[in-house]
């Protein structure tokens, strides 16, 4: 007959023993997981929209280095991701396009340890290939005859874009304020807008469909991308390893190839 009271402690004992073995002996991982790192599981990474391509590649490289690991990416505007995390969405890593969203997540006690900056970005004027509107610099953003797009002020690229325009003393006449940087980029790439202000990395991502016009260093801003493993993660080891990977030489090489400034 089954007697729970007698079997449970035995089971616990076994679990403890196995646990001790796994922790005490680095070699144990090779036997149990069959991978070099011993990491085995799935993590969900919440990454800002502007990180879409770079993080896709970084996730692939991380999975290649850890064959038993799957990285799932959830990409949206940083503030939308912040809201999802604060509402209890199952996320293991958060990569924000600005410090303020990360700070709010950290203040809510949702991060595990300090956030680290893994990349930098700056802004550029983006125009469709061939520059049909003849846009030259930020002054053109005040031109009513051009179709001008900005990001909405509620999202980081809109906030930074307005700071740049204010520094340049330009009162912009936008025709639309897009809810995220990718939708702005898409409308410029399709020729539905004459110009917009996006991240340098977005111009790289859009390839031949668009052209970038540099904003003078004096008025340009530098955006920081802080990343943190999250406290609610069911796979804290993998989450930590992914953050470390982003800071590693390989991770940084991927990020800079997409136009990001190094950590």
């Amino acid at each position, binding site marked *: 007959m089954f007697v729970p009271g007698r079997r449970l402690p035995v089971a616990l004992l076994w679990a403890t023993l196995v646990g001790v073995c796994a922790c005490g002996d680095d070699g144990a991982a090779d036997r149990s997981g069959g991978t070099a790192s011993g990491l085995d599981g799935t993590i969900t990474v919440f990454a800002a929209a502007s990180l879409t391509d770079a993080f896709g590649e970084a996730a692939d490289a991380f999975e290649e280095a850890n064959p038993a690991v799957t990285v799932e990416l959830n990409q949206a505007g940083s*503030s939308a991701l912040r809201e999802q995390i604060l509402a209890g969405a199952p996320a293991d890593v958060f990569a924000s396009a600005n410090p303020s969203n990360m700070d709010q997540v950290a203040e809510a006690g949702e991060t595990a340890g300090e956030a680290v900056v893994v990349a930098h970005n700056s802004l550029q004027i983006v125009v469709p290939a061939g520059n049909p509107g003849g846009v030259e610099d930020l002054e053109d953003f005040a031109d009513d005859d051009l*179709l001008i797009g900005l990001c909405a002020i*509620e999202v980081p690229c809109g906030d930074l874009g307005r700071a740049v325009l204010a520094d340049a003393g330009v009162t912009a006449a936008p025709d*639309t*304020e897009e809810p995220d940087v990718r939708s702005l980029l898409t*409308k410029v790439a399709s020729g*539905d807008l004459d110009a917009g202000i996006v991240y340098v990395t977005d111009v790289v991502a859009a390839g031949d469909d668009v052209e970038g016009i540099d904003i003078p260093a004096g008025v340009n801003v530098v955006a920081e991308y802080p990343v943190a493993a999250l406290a609610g993660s069911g796979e804290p080891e993998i989450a930590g390893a992914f953050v470390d990977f982003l800071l590693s030489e390989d991770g940084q090489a991927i990020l800079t190839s997409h136009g990001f400034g190094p950590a």
Partner: protein
Amino acid sequence: MTTRRGAHSQRGRPPRALVLLAALTLTFLLVPFAALLQRAPWSGLIDLLREPVVTEALRLSLISACLATALSLLGGIPLAWMLARTDFPGRSLVRALVVLPMVLPPVVGGAALLFAFGRRGLVGGPVYDGTGFLLPYSLWGVVAANTFVALPFLVVTVEAGLRSADLRYEDAAATLGAGRWMVFRQITLPMILPSVVAGAVLCWARALGEFGATVTFAGNLQGRTQTMPLAVFLALESDREAAIALSLVLVAVSLAVLLPLRDRWLAA
């Protein structure tokens, strides 16, 4: 006075299984609204309603939803009539195509509208080059997006009304010498009025809440193209309480319009 409608018309208790499932469904529909009410920032609600961003978005939402409904009525009733009363090759295909916007993710619908009526679009390109007229980034762009997404709701409802209407009245009128146009105006339209109103209500409500197609096609600019759903979405990025309050305003406005309508038309 007794009526033939509703609970009075049937004897005995309603079956328990139906009542239970109906109650569960209602709960599922209403709990999220209760949760919304519970999170609402009641104290700041009045101040919020006075902010230009809210009043302008509300005005744009109401205007564009009404214009989209008017356009849908103008074009949708004839389309529904064609589908229900005439026979032409490929009718089933046309009917399937008409409901496409219901299935299409609205953002894709918005992109499709851009490909068609955008500055470099199939139709929009030549029109812009010739006249300088551009639908996107204007109120008419919002109306176009709303109409594209909401029109099928009207067509489907009105067509169902036409199909269930008794054809004998139309036949009798025709026998008495009325032309098809006269039959349509004098007999058909009054007979299917409840379906038309129901379809218009669905269409209006769908247009009022439209987000994806609008933001993709018409863009987002306060006072010009920013409707309530767009304002709510952006408020959510920075201020969750404001977003909840705005959603409640939208819900309240639609209830204020729909409740009297339902009593007057749909239950008549």
